[in-house]
């Protein structure tokens, strides 16, 4: 028996929270002497007002979907993977190595191969923390934080000393061969005779991300492995009683998690920059934590949260690009959205529950 209808819980509550976050954001904008209406308009138009805006919003969202799913899968095994940043960076390395050194004649071949490379490198980077957690009890939060730093150092080294073309100033790999460039969504639209999102970075990885959401949902709630992951996440003694090996499941869950984080590289490295640059992940690994938690560790929630963050990123980018509002305002708005929808949600939910309960009481009393 629930205190209020499901729609009120999953739609009404976040919506009101979002409105509250936006209201406070408006106050902040006022406080720095700018117009909230103008700011809101710029953001919404810039992110959602045209196929161009959507092209960017979806591009960012794609990154966050992968890192969000990564956090989610680990979370269901009650592992807090803060290492998405490093795993995604390593995924980028995997993509770069595959695309630069394997002769891949066509993107349709390059894509799956690069996906394997990305997932393998991301998973490999998650493996040591996972193994140490499972076997030695080394806390995964520490080890994944450390592995983020180590990944950054490793990439710094590889890009500067190994992958950088001779004479280039830029600590970045060479461009990937033309044949391996995956189609952008705008190309697909053009194939269908439409003009959509010209010159936007969103590419078919977005579709891969949607598929990943579905697959992760399937994995967690429909497969035996997912069942075992969730059992372990809820109760380790329970898992042992049920004949599930905590060591095995811990490692597998983290490998999947790292692999998903690594897959993000398909979007930003293979799809957008078409070469590997330094700091390509740009904090998406950390945003993934917020996205997963706000999405209530459900792929559909993650999809929505990722879109929301994509919107904030792109809308905020537009704001910073075309108005005098500093780009940090966006960070503040993001913070408020995370705070209100993710952590202060009960501030809205509790009164709503009381409202629905009393409504039910009066109705119940009448009959």
């Amino acid at each position, binding site marked *: 028996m629930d205190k209020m209808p499901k729609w009120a819980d999953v739609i009404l509550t976040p919506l009101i929270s979002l409105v509250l976050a936006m209201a406070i954001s408006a106050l902040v904008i006022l406080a720095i002497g700018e117009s909230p209406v103008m700011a809101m308009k710029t953001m919404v138009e810039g992110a959602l007002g045209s196929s161009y805006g959507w092209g960017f919003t979806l591009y960012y969202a794609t990154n966050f979907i992968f890192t969000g799913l990564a956090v989610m899968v680990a979370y269901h095994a009650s592992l807090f993977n803060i290492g998405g940043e490093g795993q995604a960076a390593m995924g980028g390395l995997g993509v770069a190595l595959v695309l630069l050194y394997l002769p891949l004649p066509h993107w349709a071949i390059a894509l799956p191969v690069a996906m394997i490379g990305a997932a393998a490198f991301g998973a490999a980077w998650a493996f040591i923390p996972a193994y*140490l957690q499972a076997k*030695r009890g080394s806390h995964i939060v520490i080890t994944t934080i450390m*592995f983020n*730093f180590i990944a950054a*150092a490793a990439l710094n080294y590889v890009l500067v000393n190994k992958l950088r073309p001779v004479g280039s100033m830029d600590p970045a790999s060479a461009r990937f061969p033309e044949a391996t460039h995956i189609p952008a969504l705008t190309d697909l639209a053009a194939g269908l005779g439409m003009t959509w999102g010209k010159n936007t970075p969103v590419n078919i990885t977005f579709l891969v991300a949607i598929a990943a959401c579905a697959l992760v949902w399937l994995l967690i709630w429909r497969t035996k492995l997912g069942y075992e992951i969730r059992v372990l996440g809820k109760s380790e003694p329970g898992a042992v009683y049920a004949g599930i090996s905590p060591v095995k499941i811990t490692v597998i869950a983290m490998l999947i998690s790292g692999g998903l984080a690594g897959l993000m590289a398909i979007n930003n490295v293979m799809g957008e920059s078409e070469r590997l640059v330094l700091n390509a992940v740009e904090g998406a690994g950390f945003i993934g*934590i917020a996205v997963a938690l706000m999405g209530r560790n459900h792929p559909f929630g993650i999809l929505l949260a990722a879109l929301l963050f994509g919107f904030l990123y792109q809308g905020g980018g537009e704001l910073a690009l075309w108005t005098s509002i500093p780009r940090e305002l966006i*960070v*503040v708005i993001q913070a408020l959205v995370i705070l209100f929808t993710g952590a*202060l*949600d009960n501030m809205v939910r509790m009164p709503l529950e009381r409202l629905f309960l009393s409504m039910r009481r009066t109705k119940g009393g009448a009959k």
Partner: protein
Amino acid sequence: MKIKDSLIALIVLGICLIWAFVDGSAAEQGIGSALRLMTPLLLACLAGLYSERAGVFDIGLEGKMLMAAFTAASVAYLTDSAWLGLLAGIGGSLALSLVHGLASITFRGNQLIAGVAINFLASGLTVLVGQNAFGLGGRTPALTGAGRFQPINLPFAETLRDVPVIGPIYSGLISGNTILVYVALLMVPVTWWVLFRTRFGLRLRAVGENPASVDTAGVSVTRLRYAAVAICGILCGIAGAYLATGLSAGFVKEMTAGRGFIALAALIFAKWRPWQALFATFLFGLLEAIANLYPNLDLGFITIPSMFMNALPYILTVIILAGFVGRAIPPRAGGEPYVKER
């Protein structure tokens, strides 16, 4: 059990001793550097310790420190007083603690999300407000004179300088730090004492282990947790103020540079205990100081690249953690809001 508990201490002391033996003067400088690098980590780590011991997990240490660094530097600049700056730093950090408390105690929200939000909030607000106030892209103007905490020379530091062993340790390491370093060091026994020798500490630990036990003993869970979160805010405030007005001379955006996360790692490393927190944070400081002093290890046949030396502290941390420290069991009620009725 006991040996395992003091293992980090032994490792740290061992490194120091070997270093002092191999290269005395470098060790003196390095250990001094480690002490300074340790101080913000230690304060933040103890801050987290209070909060998490009371059952409120805090990944917002970074944000609280950053906010404190900013408010401390701003007020120190405006008033030309490091002490007022310190107060402001504490105030700034406390404000975020209040947000954390509101979200995770009063409204029983997700403590981790609240922490993430606080990190974002601090990162954005500091630059936004700073740019509005000073127009330097979020930086505060450089602090001078009374706007900064100056090193204090302890009594007899000069006279004892040439005494062997004691001289370098007392005059070189212990003396000549800013007051906040001593505050941080003092906070270790104080925290231990508060936690394990006072009524408040007993209740605080109890509320992190089993809040229902505290509730049924007639003590308010909410008030205790708020108190813990507030102490966390104060300590993060000191840490941030030390960064901006002790170690450097003003605020630079994102100047905490991940120290809040390292402090969090140290807290787990220390298994939520004050003395171990001292050694864990000192270990981080020490490893960084070593990497700073030997940036390009030339082994003859191969020169270790700087990136590797930069990553060395993190690599060693993982090795020590996996090799010697083992399983860390967090406070049992940690991370979960106290809900009586669902």
